[in-house]
């Protein structure tokens, strides 16, 4: 089997494994009545904040930003993905297997990517009409693609952070929370990126979501499609860069556990 086919095969099996784990947390019914209602309420809450500010523009800005943010938020659950292997006691077996652990980890958390994608689109398409945010058809059909791009970009960051967390499991929730809070704060979700001092703005441009969200705002705002391309390309570049960083560092970080003895049998 060629290297690429092998990698895709392992990715698919790892993804199935992750979805089966996730199916213990949620069924369709509990996802809809629990998680989905929660994210709807979250987006409605921020849209109402806009209404409180007395500006339709603010309503739509906050609604769109928080709906797309859900894609990034969901994907960042991948940070904790490494923890599950340790809990299952499979981490030493993965490290000692002939395959690269990063392939398994990339595949294992794809449920988070799908979860974020569905949450984001589900919130956007349901809440937008409630607050008179008109989605331009058929251009709006591009929104799922852009949301997927944002989710994938955040997933790459989540995988990179998952590698770091592998060395300090107790920090997994802190790291994930700091990551999504930072994106939420400076990525243009609630406040325009250029509101912040220049260094913070630069940092925001290196984060997932920032460019993809701007592309979605431009799309919904009626900008010509060609003008979206720079932001789409930048979002793609940011995601690729985080993925490359994850691939470069992950195995090395996992191997670091060989030095400090943190890879326990059965634990």
């Amino acid at each position: 089997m060629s290297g690429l086919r092998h990698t895709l095969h392992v990715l698919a099996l790892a993804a199935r494994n992750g979805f089966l784990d996730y199916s213990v947390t949620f069924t369709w019914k509990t996802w809809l009545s629990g998680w989905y209602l929660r994210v709807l309420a979250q987006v409605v809450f921020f849209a109402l904040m806009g209404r409180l500010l007395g500006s339709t523009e603010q309503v739509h800005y906050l609604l769109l930003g928080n709906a797309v943010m859900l894609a990034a938020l969901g994907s960042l659950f991948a940070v904790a993905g490494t923890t599950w292997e340790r809990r299952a006691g499979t981490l030493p077996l993965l490290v000692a297997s002939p395959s690269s652990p990063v392939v398994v980890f990339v595949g294992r958390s794809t449920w988070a990517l799908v979860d974020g994608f569905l949450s984001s689109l589900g919130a956007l398409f349901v809440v937008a009409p409630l607050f008179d945010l008109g989605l331009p058809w058929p251009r709006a059909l591009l929104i799922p693609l852009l949301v997927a791009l944002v989710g994938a970009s955040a997933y790459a960051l989540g995988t990179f952070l998952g590698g770091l967390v592998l060395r300090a499991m107790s920090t997994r929730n802190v790291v994930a929370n700091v990551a999504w809070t930072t994106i939420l704060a400076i990525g243009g979700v609630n406040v325009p990126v250029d509101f912040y001092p220049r260094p913070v703005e630069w940092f925001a441009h290196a984060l997932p979501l920032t460019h993809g969200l701007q592309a979605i705002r431009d799309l919904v705002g009626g900008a010509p499609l060609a003008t979206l391309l720079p932001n789409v390309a930048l979002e793609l570049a940011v995601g690729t860069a985080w993925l490359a960083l994850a691939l470069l560092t992950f195995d090395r970080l996992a191997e670091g556990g060989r030095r400090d003895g943190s890879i326990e049998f059965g634990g």
Partner: protein
Amino acid sequence: MPDAVEVEDVTRVFEPRKKKDERVVALDEVSLTIPEGEIHGLLGPNGAGKTTLVKILSTVLLPTSGRARVCGHDVVEETKAVRPLIGIVFGGERGLYWRLTGRQNLEYWGALYRLPPAAVRERTRTLLERVGLADRADQRVEQYSRGMKQRLHLARGLIGDAKVLFLDEPTTGMDPIAGREFRTLIGELKGEGRTILLATHDMVEAETVCDRVTLIDRGKIIATESPRSLGHVISRFQRVDVEGAPEPVLGRIAALEGVSAVTRTEDGGARIEVSEEGATAEVLRRLVDAGVTSVRTSLPSLEEVYVQLIGERGLEV
């Protein structure tokens, strides 16, 4: 042909991660050679260094110093060559994906061992039959009993057709029958020419399946012998079982130098425990002089050797 496992002066020190922790020397210049096809037992109490050695050999831990090779490949420098050759099986219920079925677990690990899908399916089917899980193959692992999980562990360790298997206390928590079945499986693996390093507390297990055993304590190897000849290592600890020995004779023997105990057995006989080199000959002479002819000497069992060499601390396990 290189030995299956070669360990040369391997030391592993765990430096303290927190101020309150202490520096731990888990292995102290350990050397060991296991020829191809041997089942080698690694015996020792908790904290002796068994798992540390298995972890180093299975490439999940680096030694602080020394060298270790599996099938001639260095476990530090040549992990890519070592990993396809080894299988790891540890005890307990971890190390499996509980939401997957037994079959899915094996297929998953088969893919990780880079086997083509068709080969994975065939090997999975064969292994499930072999470990007696064919009828439960499509049931989720969370519904398996402990013994079934352990058999699946073994199948997982074999999915890559490992030349060398590292079994770290694989029968922990198994009931006696499941343990016996498991040992039978291990015996079959030897017949296929696989090399097995079995880290265990279980003396019966070691005595039953191992060609040789290494006693390890506090990171140091105490002895490496076959289970039977290990008794010779402490040959001074012999015992003499007698029948029909008069009480006065036993009393005089008990007073001899080198005789540590004389106890009556339930069948009316007596057991004389000897703890010094040469004392056995004197005991036998006294018994024969007294006309006692039903006499049998024996070496201690592996468990007795273990206790003698490692001490009562070993019984903590």
